[in-house]
């Protein structure tokens, strides 16, 4: 059992938790992920690490409430325990030798883009962050990004905060304005990552994306997380989760991501109804 040391709501659908897991905290690097189960018989949920405190032995996770399991997790509080927590899994973000990088985050993906930005910033790399949200209420981690970036651009779909528009617009503007990036790192919804790669490709700037496919064991056993990268089958859990964005078949990944959508919606409604009954 793994203790929830702290819990904070970042916005109405996104929550941050620090989980006591010293072995994982000792090793976790930006870009890697963990798998947790909220309770016995629960699903195994993969979540990319949002930070860790090696001294306290805690790992930070930030999750969006999208299904039954994240709904259950969100009902846990400080001092409660979760059943299982394993990691760190996958490969860490490659940061060596990078001098200037654009980080593009979308929605809750910003939570995992942040530790990458922080690490690069610590290593003395010039970091330009572009983070996008649907609206002002969904904005997260603004101060943290400010502290880790040499330049920060915030986008909202409706213009309720920062600039109105999507993240690829300022990215293109910066590149066309003469910014020379060694790499662009994009973390967010598949559709956003796809369009980031379409934006950077004409300029030939290496673009790394973080994939978050359906997964069970996370250790290279089940093969559920397979993706087509450069025409070959790759497994996000051991070969990734980060890949060369120009090589990833995004359309296939988006299609596979929808496989259990109906089931997941039903499950979530079921869990929400249970909690409603409890309240009544």
């Amino acid at each position, binding site marked *: 059992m793994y203790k929830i040391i702290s819990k904070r709501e970042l916005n109405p659908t996104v929550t941050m938790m620090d989980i006591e897991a010293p072995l994982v905290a000792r*090793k976790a690097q930006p870009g890697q992920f963990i798998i947790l189960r909220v309770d016995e018989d629960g699903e195994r949920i993969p979540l990319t690490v949002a930070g860790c405190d090696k001294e306290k032995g805690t790992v930070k996770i930030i999750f969006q409430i999208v299904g*039954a399991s994240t709904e259950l997790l969100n009902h846990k509080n400080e001092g409660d325990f979760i059943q299982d927590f394993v990691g*760190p899994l996958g490969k860490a973000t490659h940061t060596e030798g990078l001098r200037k990088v654009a980080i593009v985050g979308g929605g809750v993906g910003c939570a995992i883009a942040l530790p990458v930005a922080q690490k690069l910033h610590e290593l003395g790399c010039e970091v330009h962050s572009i983070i996008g949200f649907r609206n002002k209420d969904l904005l997260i981690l603004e101060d943290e990004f400010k502290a880790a970036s040499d330049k920060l651009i915030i986008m909202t779909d409706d213009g309720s905060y920062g600039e109105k528009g999507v993240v690829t617009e300022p990215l293109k503007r910066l590149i066309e304005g003469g910014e020379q990036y060694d790499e662009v790192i994009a973390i967010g919804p598949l559709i956003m990552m796809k369009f980031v790669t379409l934006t950077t490709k004409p300029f030939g700037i290496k673009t790394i994306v973080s994939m978050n496919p359906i997964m*069970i064991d996370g*250790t290279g056993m089940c093969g559920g997380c397979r993706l087509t990268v450069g025409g070959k089958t790759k*497994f996000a859990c051991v070969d990734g989760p980060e890949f060369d964005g120009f090589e990833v078949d995004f359309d296939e990944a988006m299609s596979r991501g929808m496989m259990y959508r109906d*089931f997941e919606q039903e499950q979530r409604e079921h869990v929400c109804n249970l909690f409603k009954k409890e309240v009544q």
Partner: protein
Amino acid sequence: MPNMSLKKNPMPVQDPIERGRNFKEVALGYDEATALDEAARCLNCKNMPCVSGCPVNVHIPAFIAKVRELDFEGAYQVINKSSSLPAVCGRVCPQETQCESKCVRGIKGEAVGIGRLERFVADWHNSHCTEAPQIPEQNGHKVAIVGSGPSGLTCAGDLAKLGYKVTVFEALHLAGGVLVYGIPEFRLPKSIVQKEVDTLKALGVDVETNVVIGKTLTVDELFEMGYEAIFIGSGAGLPRFMGIPGESLKGVYSANEFLTRSNLMKAYKSDSTTPIMHAKKVAVVGGGNVAMDAARTALRMGAEKVYIVYRRSLEELPARKEEVEHAMEEGIEFKLLNNPTRIIGFENPDDRRDPRNGFVTGIECIQMELGEPDASGRRSPVEVPGSEFVLDVDCVIIAIGTSPNPLIKSTTEGLDVNRKGGIVVEEATGLTSREGVYAGGDAVTGAATVILAMGAGKTAAKAIDEYLSNK
């Protein structure tokens, strides 16, 4: 007087049609009278050919003699000296190609039902003996075991009985490895695996779940933590795919994924929170035990039609005969001498957002015929030109094997692997290219059987004991 019947006592089983709709165990086990009758067929041969056919050398005539004496616990103790998992072996070992293939009674008639008797004895023990085993006197040495599948559990059990302090590290949330994620409930009830794990814990073995060796901790860190020897039994790795078009469509599973969802993640229960496709028509590609398990699981999940697609003929099917027979009885259709060429998905050209897009609708296969025998002596299948046809299915499960897991190799310096990625070991000891590091099971051999993995765990336990006793 021995029982000279040429036939072994049949194993009572659930009705084939009935069992195709439930996940209860198919084989029901001998009752006491049947066990005694079968035990009387053993001639108690002096040279014990059967024992040489057992990868862990169970003293077969000795345990059967105890059964005849009605000393069932005594029989269990005989088996237990050689095997840590009798209730598991009695169910999933391919006895017909091992101990029973050497049985003198098999020369004229059928071999003694050794596996069925082993199961009877183990089940009798589990339902009659509640006493916890005594923790052996500790010798002060610490050994780490990586993976809690059949090789790891066997190695752990043998070392614990010799007084070693053993810790088993398991990557998943539950101990048992392939016994819990791979082999389905109807062939090996999970309560039986749990009981075997509990017995090991009672012997003083610690089981640490949620620790991925190669990630959470490395082999070198285990040595730093004071473990003096390490056994790697991390199992088979990534599932292999065929490399044909359509393998990423929705409704295509690896057997590992399909079985893990239904077994470990309990999707077979109606109230499970684990999503799985309840397909109506399923094609399973492959002919091994895993393919049979996947096909029979799909049937029990509600499929109306399940096909096994295998490119060779019935004779070459690598699965156990008993499993193939069970599958056929349950109505699974064998499409032999057929090889898939592509998987077909739904595509609505007018609506890219049609929710049916990208789901499997069929699998195209081509007929094969057997050509000349290849280097291995097996006749290799060749395509019959122009014989392509489409099977209407909404789910395809690929069960054509696995390739070794890269996690430990990539984080352990000096650990040699072969061309295929399997860990290289000395056959007689299981010793790897690193001092104090031993390995066995699928991590070494690639996909094989439970009992071979147990044999490897046993070999390594003996070698580790010798290594640490002389250190």
